[in-house]
């Protein structure tokens, strides 16, 4: 390729940031001869996303000079790099203040007063997205801190960059964040505060996946081993790859990321591919509003994820693993980075893991603010340095995945389930829960409950019992509905909560567990505001690739706003509801990926089951 690069010069800070992130120009003399043109471009391309992070972290935005220098070093066409950078919400393509407060405006936080917070912030700090000031703020989608909303993430560009989460946040916190930055906020509350069951011995006794959260030191490999860590991997190696996959298949473990696909089948499919290399991608993008379980697992017990991934890699023949971690998770990133380097230093990752005769290593890829990158093929494009657009299926990831190679993609929670399976066997695992939904499940309970947090229970508890476990709706209020599965899920009405939270139970109830979101609404919450937020979320997060979703999510939001403003006649509203159904149908039928397929589900369920849009006519 003979590329043409922009003439704008990078600043010294940008040069230094790129020196640290990608080194000097990799397009050195001789590279081409050694590796060949096409290969060179591919070899460099996957460094694009980390390099963009480096620029954003250092100067607070992506400048023409910085982007041009990055393109020269990585041999990426500037138009493409611009296309990639502008895809992500965390990257600003215009000069922006170094300090930015991201104030959550999403569903669970709305139940906890985010609406009032945003109004107060506006009054105290002025409009969002200001320029020419040291700090500004902007509303944000769910930050994965729903158990202690309303939440805020503060970022400050510099050398080094700083970040802090503040939750619950008040308007004064935002003002301080803009003036002084993230370093002003003390240590975050311990992660175990998100696990109410851990507070009582009886509750703690029932925890399997979360048993070490708050108990082990997440920074200590020794402590992890002292609490049973790495026994599962030893068992796996003793069994051999075939038996590991047999046990996982027998356990009937299904994916916890939303699609409930059998893990054993996925692993077997990759293990059987003669093509090498095989890759393992751990999906820790966790951007479904109301989901925060993977954050709790990673923050509280990072070695368990590393061990699980190592077991999976051993069984499926993966040499390299990637953890695609949500960009807005500073503490999870820190704990995971530390744990990976400690594990590597002690021979638990790298060539010849634990002297057991196989190689495996893990790299963290930080996401940059795009819900769609959690989709299992968009995640590949994002890691490879392309726009995070879903790919066409077939071919499926087990055949043609990351870098075009057979790839296992699993959710964090799915992976850590492999530890109890290796310790006690697939049959013992399958004995927990129901025959079709085996093992325990971590639910993210948020909204109007007294004790929001993650709850781990054997599959089979009813929705009512789950709400009670989380302390029920606060005194003096009454339950109106539950949003199951997040924005991509659906509402169930208050009088229909006696069905079991199992995959089959949800399906029979025409709903879905999705990623395990149980968002509880009471009579203080304005359902119409909630619905508008859901519509806005999908409009914001659509990747824009296909027409039904790119335009449909916009028309859906417009119609919903028209109806809920309450200024239309009944006849006009009826026409708009009919329009919503038609738009919803084409999104479900003809979109490329799950985002479009589900963009109408929650709104449809609110109309059909909650009667949400009745009586709003003028």
């Amino acid at each position, binding site marked *: 390729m003979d590329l043409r690069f922009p003439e704008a010069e990078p600043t010294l800070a940008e040069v230094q940031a790129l020196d640290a992130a990608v080194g000097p120009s990799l397009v050195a003399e001789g590279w081409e001869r050694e590796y060949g043109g096409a290969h060179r471009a591919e070899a460099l391309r996957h460094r694009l996303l980390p390099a963009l992070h480096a620029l954003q972290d250092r100067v607070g935005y992506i400048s023409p000079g910085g982007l041009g220098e990055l393109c020269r070093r990585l041999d990426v066409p500037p138009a493409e790099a611009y296309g990639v950078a502008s895809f992500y919400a965390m990257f600003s393509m215009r000069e922006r203040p170094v300090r930015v407060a991201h104030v959550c405006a999403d569903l669970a936080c709305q139940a906890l007063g985010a609406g009032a917070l945003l109004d107060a912030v506006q009054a105290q700090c002025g409009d969002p997205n200001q320029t020419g000031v040291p700090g500004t703020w902007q509303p944000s989608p769910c930050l994965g801190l729903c158990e202690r909303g309303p939440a805020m993430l503060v970022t400050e560009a510099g050398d080094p960059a700083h970040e802090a989460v503040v939750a619950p946040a008040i308007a004064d916190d935002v003002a301080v964040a803009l003036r002084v930055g993230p370093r002003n906020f003390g240590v975050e509350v311990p992660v175990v505060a998100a696990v109410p069951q851990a507070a009582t011995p009886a509750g703690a006794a029932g925890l399997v996946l979360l048993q070490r959260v708050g108990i082990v030191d997440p920074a200590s490999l020794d402590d992890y081993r002292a609490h049973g860590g790495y026994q599962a991997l030893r068992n796996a190696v003793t069994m051999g790859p075939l038996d590991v996959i047999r046990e996982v298949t027998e356990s009937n473990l299904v994916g916890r990321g939303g699609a409930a696909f059998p893990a054993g089948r996925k692993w077997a499919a990759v293990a059987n591919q003669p093509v090498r290399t095989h890759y393992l991608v751990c999906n820790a993008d966790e951007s479904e509003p109301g989901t925060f379980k993977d954050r709790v697992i990673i923050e509280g017990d990072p070695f368990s994820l590393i061990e699980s991934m190592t077991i999976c890699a051993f069984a499926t023949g993966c040499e390299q693993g990637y953890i695609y971690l949500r960009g807005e998770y500073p503490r999870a990133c820190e704990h995971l980075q530390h744990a990976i380097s400690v594990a590597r230093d002690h021979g638990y990752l790298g060539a010849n893991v634990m002297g057991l005769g196989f190689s495996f290593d893990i790299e963290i890829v930080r996401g940059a603010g795009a819900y769609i990158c959690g989709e299992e093929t968009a995640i590949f494009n994002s890691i490879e340095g392309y726009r995070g657009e879903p790919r066409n299926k077939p071919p499926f990831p087990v055949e043609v995945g990351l870098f075009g190679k057979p790839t296992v993609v699993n959710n964090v929670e799915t992976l850590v389930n492999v530890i109890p399976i290796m310790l006690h066997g697939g049959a013992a695992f399958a004995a927990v829960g129901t025959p079709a939904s085996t093992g325990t499940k971590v639910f993210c309970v948020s909204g109007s409950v007294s004790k929001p947090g993650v709850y781990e229970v054997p599959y089979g508890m009813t929705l009512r019992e789950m709400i009670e476990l989380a302390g029920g709706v606060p005194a003096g209020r009454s339950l109106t509905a539950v949003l199951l599965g997040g924005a991509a899920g659906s509402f169930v009405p208050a009088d229909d909560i006696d069905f079991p939270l199992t995959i089959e139970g949800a399906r029979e109830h025409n709903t879905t567990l999705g990623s395990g979101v149980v968002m509880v609404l009471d009579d203080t919450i304005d359902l119409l505001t909630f619905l508008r937020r859901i519509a806005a979320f999908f409009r914001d997060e659509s990747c824009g690739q296909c027409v039904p979703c790119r*335009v449909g999510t916009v028309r859906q939001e417009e*119609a919903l706003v028209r109806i809920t403003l309450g200024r239309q006649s009944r006849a006009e509203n009826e026409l708009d509801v009919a329009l919503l159904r038609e738009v919803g149908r084409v999104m479900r039928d003809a979109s490329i990926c799950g985002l479009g397929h589900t963009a109408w589900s929650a709104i449809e369920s609110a109309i059909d089951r909650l009667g949400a849009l009745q009586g709003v006519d003028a």
Partner: protein
Amino acid sequence: MNMLHETPVGLPRRAVTLQIDGDDVKVPEGSTILDACKSHGTDLPTLCYGDTLDPVNACRVCVVEVEGSRALVPSCSRPVESGMVVHTDNERARHSRKMVLELLGSSVDLSAAPRVYGWMQQYEADPSRFGDVNTMKTVRQPAKVDNDLYVRDYSRCILCYKCVDACGEQWQNSFAIAVAGRGFDARISTEFDVELPDSACVYCGNCIEVCPTGALMFKTEHDMRAANTWDEDAQQQTTTICPYCGVGCNLTLHTQDNTIVKVTSPHDHAITSGNLCIKGRFGFQHVQTFARD
């Protein structure tokens, strides 16, 4: 490059039988459903499909129902399988096709895309259902006129990705343009939206060749449309060989009133597949300037 269109030499392809709208259809293995529909005489609308490009299956106007598949399937990219049962024209497929056309029509100026207009009538698509065109979100914007050769009017852009693929590794290897932004804000752009003369564009015009909506247009056509003198019915097309170098690309000269108004190139040409360089595509301006002198 273009794997779908490479015909393996010497290896006869196995035939696959599938059912389309109740009829058995036999096509070579590796064909797409769209190929099979063509051979069966079934006409499907397509927008992002390009006969010289890899399918991106983004517009979804060509979707059909395949029994056993939960969602509808893009016919332009899905390979046929033996025993597949395809419905191209049932209520479900028609609904999606109509909605795709309506959604596009509600947000994009399709007035320079006559084929689309025909399909909108065929499927009874009525974009005005979505509300007041003045308050609805659309991609309306001024045309970008930043060079003498061609105009980019992205208020006509349906984001079919074809120009990007023609400019990138499938043909031109210039990478002057890419998709930027996300969601409804997604758009075709140079880096930081710089003007074409400051970009990597070499004015081959291969993007114009594949653009299905007139978003990319010869400056001559743009100016004539603005002056209300553009009249396709009064135009003639003559295919000739480019005189500028020895490659021998085919040029189709579109003339109106004895003046060349635009240049295209036959897509079925074995070597160039519709692609030209600046000289073949835009050199006519020199010819005419010459003639006038």
